[in-house]
């Protein structure tokens, strides 16, 4: 069982991207996934949305898997492995999550994964916010990503997209940065291809 962590600031498009990717990967690669939704709110919203789309969803809410719910994350991953044993679990981390802490928890307490891939989203609509208010946990999400997805490219022009992509590449020179519109589906095939290749090859 492999783990894909989708992280990114609040409202950056994680759920929208996740749905687009799962649809592509289940039809194209025959992979089966369980979705693990983490929300800091006391009531799960994204889980309801994804279940209505026909996905199999588990929820961890009322806290963040990087801190308060770190133990619950490990327990839930074990349960998913024991009961369902899917090819992959896609964890949508809360928008406030520090990815480094999630990876640290997994390193220490759950060594059974066949591989972990972190996809972190940045949001072109928030370009100004990111400049004016560089938030440490958001920077951490980008720094610890294996793949950085610059979402909402439909909301800005090519120049702004290139400027923000360059800033993201500076934060994480080792990761590929792919610009997408998760809403319109543009470039999602490329992200799905990267993920599909990783699913087939990593062990």
């Amino acid at each position, binding site marked *: 069982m492999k783990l894909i962590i989708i992280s990114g600031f*609040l409202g950056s498009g994680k759920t929208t991207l996740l749905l687009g990717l799962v649809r592509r990967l289940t039809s194209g690669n025959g992979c089966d996934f369980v979705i693990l939704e983490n929300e800091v709110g*006391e009531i799960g919203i994204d889980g309801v949305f994804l279940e209505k789309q026909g996905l199999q969803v588990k929820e961890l809410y009322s806290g963040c898997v990087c801190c308060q719910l770190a133990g619950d994350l490990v327990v839930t991953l074990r349960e998913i492995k024991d009961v369902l044993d899917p090819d992959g679990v896609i964890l949508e981390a809360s928008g406030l999550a520090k990815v480094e802490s999630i990876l640290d928890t997994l390193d220490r307490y759950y060594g059974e994964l066949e591989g972990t891939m972190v996809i972190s989203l940045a949001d072109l609509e928030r370009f100004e916010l990111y400049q004016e208010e560089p*938030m440490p946990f958001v920077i951490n999400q980008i720094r610890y990503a294996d793949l950085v997805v610059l979402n909402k490219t439909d909301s800005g022009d090519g120049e702004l997209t290139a400027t923000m992509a360059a800033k993201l590449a500076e934060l994480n020179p080792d990761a590929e940065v792919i610009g997408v519109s998760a809403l319109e589906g543009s470039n999602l095939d490329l992200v799905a291809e990267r993920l599909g290749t990783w699913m087939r090859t990593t062990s």
Partner: protein
Amino acid sequence: MDAHDFVTFSARRKLAPLTAGSPRDLLLSFLTDYVKALGTSGCSIIGHIKGIVEDGESPPLFFSATSLSGEPQLKGGPLGQGSDLALTITVIVSGVDTEQLSRLLDDCLAGYFLCTLHGG
């Protein structure tokens, strides 16, 4: 600004539309008012305002707002007209506390709906 500077507030309400307009339009007007009210009450960043409105029969309507200036987004529905609605909402923002978030929610809902608390 770090993760602990954000405040999270979740609530459920039962809504009866005050006018005969489409529930979708009423919801959009409420959301626009709520975002505006947050902006004038010291909210500096809207992380995400999101939720679900259900009438018990039609497909649910999902809504989302991610900035103080942009338009709220709706997907799903359409909700039936004239029926009572169940609202589930989560608000994650900075600069206002949960009491303010709750009071402003009910103030803004009251412009369009008769609103009662709604459990579980």
